[in-house]
């Protein structure tokens, strides 16, 4: 009896628990939900909190309504001047209309991504085709993104119940072969710069050296001129002194200088004189008698 009664209690409690779990449901703050009756939506956009449903007949589908990041695969686009670029972008998107979203994708996020990605790809392709590389890289990035974002946003709201919050381009790279061309160009620019520096150095160096050499030549030439002048002055003074002195008696001067010259001429060994004993010098060699001049 007692056993039966307690079994009944336990069974009752279990039944209550089951009923509660099938008629109460919680929608998290990060989610929105739709209520379905046999697959038909009967309540839309259920807000977070504790809610009640009829068991068995009604089911609840919840969707993550946080901002989601879709990182697209890098793809190759052509710019206005037909240059190829490899572009990597990402999309921030969010479910804003759970009913629409459920209808379009049955709540499958992968399915949603499969629908969004080609659209993003296509609008970027169009956008890139309208601009040249310079514009894409530099000043146009904001414009580049805002157009497609707005268009896609409107479109996706209607089609998928999804808001496209942001499309951002990350990488814009050149293909491998073009990259190496860019490297070559950069290298050649640097080489040119390096050569310029070195040439400037040479030029400056030459200038300095030439200037130094010029100054040296000038200095030496001036010095030589000064030196010659001094020598000339010396010679002139000496000549003046001589002429002043020797002018007093020219005949005696030439006599005296000649004697001096003979003395100078016969300095050293190895001279031989062949003498005639009848010369004046030897007059007394023959006889000591007085001669008449």
């Amino acid at each position: 009896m007692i056993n039966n009664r307690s079994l009944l209690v336990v069974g009752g409690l279990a039944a209550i628990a089951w009923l509660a779990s099938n008629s109460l449901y919680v929608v998290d703050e990060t989610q929105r939900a739709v209520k379905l009756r046999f697959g038909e939506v009967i309540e839309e956009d259920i807000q977070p909190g504790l809610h009640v449903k009829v068991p068995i007949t009604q089911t609840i589908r919840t969707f993550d309504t946080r901002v989601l990041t879709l990182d697209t695969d890098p793809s190759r686009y052509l710019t206005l001047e037909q240059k190829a670029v490899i572009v990597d972008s990402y999309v921030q998107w969010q479910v804003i209309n759970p009913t629409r979203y459920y209808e379009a994708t049955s709540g499958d996020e992968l399915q949603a991504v499969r629908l969004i990605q080609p659209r993003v790809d296509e609008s970027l392709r169009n956008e890139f085709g309208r601009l040249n590389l310079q514009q894409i890289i530099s000043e146009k990035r904001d414009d580049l993104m805002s157009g497609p974002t707005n268009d896609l946003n409107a479109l996706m709201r209607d089609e998928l119940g999804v808001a496209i919050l942001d499309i951002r381009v990350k990488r814009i790279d050149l293909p491998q072969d073009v990259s190496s061309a860019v490297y070559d160009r950069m290298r050649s620019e640097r080489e040119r710069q390096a050569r310029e520096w070195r040439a400037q150095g040479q030029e400056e160096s030459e200038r300095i050296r030439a200037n130094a050499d010029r100054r040296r030549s000038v200095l030496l030439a001036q010095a030589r001129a000064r030196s010659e002048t001094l020598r000339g002055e010396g010679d002139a003074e000496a000549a003046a002194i001589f002429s002043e002195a020797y002018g007093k008696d020219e005949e005696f001067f030439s006599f005296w200088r000649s004697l001096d010259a003979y003395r100078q001429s016969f300095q050293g060994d190895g001279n031989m004189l062949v003498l005639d004993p009848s010369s004046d010098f030897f007059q007394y060699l023959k006889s000591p008698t007085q001669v008449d001049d």
Partner: protein
Amino acid sequence: MAWNEPGGGNQHDPWSGGGRGGNDGGKGGGNQGPPDLDEALKKFQDKLNNMLGGRGGKRGGTGGKGGGGKPRNAFTLPGLLIVVALAIWAASGFYLVDQSERGVVLRFGKFQEVVTPGLQWNPPLIDDVRMVNVTRVRSLTQTQSMLTQDENIVSVEISAQYQVADPRSYVLNVRNPELSLENALDSALRHVVGGTDMIDILTSGREILGSSVNSRLQSYLDSYGTGILLQTLNVESTAPPDPVQDAFDDVIRAREDRQRTINQALAYANAVIPAAQGQAQRLVEQGQGYRESVVAEAEGQASRFNALLTQYQDAPAIMRERLYLDTMSEVYGETAKVMVDVSENSPLMVLPLDRLGSGTSGASGQAGDDESLDPRVLERLGASQSSSRNSSNSNSSNGIRREGRQ
């Protein structure tokens, strides 16, 4: 689990799955206490049964037990269990929030509040608390190569330090805030670099680069509602890509080379000019020296001449004779002599030619100005003088030997 919570049908369920992690003390007590109690009660009942002579039989398992005929037992046991379960449930609602954390509380999934540090209580199973660290500075570093405005490629390393500023947004708005941050950082950086020339990025523009990336990135993050606040954003390094690194280094080397070449030239100039000045000074001094010595010599000779002249004017003939004899004796005294009496018409005369040729001309070349040689000094003297004057002297051995002697 949650739905079984009040159920007495599975007593262990509330204890094993009763609370979130975080208050094990209460749970431990729950796991240990009730079985002991159970055991004790069972033994007590069995004793009673035995005493009463009832069928002694152990039944395993849990669940509601038939009391041994005493309704008090049957009533108290489930009641006791419920009380204990409630106590455990309540106890497991306590938790500590650390100074560095905030808790985002969701009540039945709906946002309730953000709890601050301290001891907190929230009803378990009804409230869900998600902890976020808000003071730890997280960092993210990226190195990428990218295009610049002038279509060059640079490689930039950037690091961002960030904090969770708004825990509610961080937890609830964005599924993967870090991934969003990474993507946004990448995009913002490339955007700014794409609007700058390479040379600016590599040299002066780093700080500007950092600050503009910072403001741009923060605006992205705010628009996504990530709840992330950037603390600092550093451009760690900017470098040309590896394939052209050498060329860039070479530019730096070239600049050094330029400076070095110029320095060498300056050094050369600094060496040459003073040397030239010294040389110039030497030349001038030589000139000056020549001048002074020539003048001095002239003065000496003039005064000597003047002195002689004074004597000569007193007695010219004697003076001449004496000077002449002095000179000749000096000349003849140093020179080899051959006397030849040509007036006697001697038929034969042999000159000692070996002695004539062996000597060098001793004339030192300092021939005076326009000497008129005494005619009694013979041609040999003239020949020796001309050999010292004319470089076109055939007797080269003489010249060489003369050099050797002097």
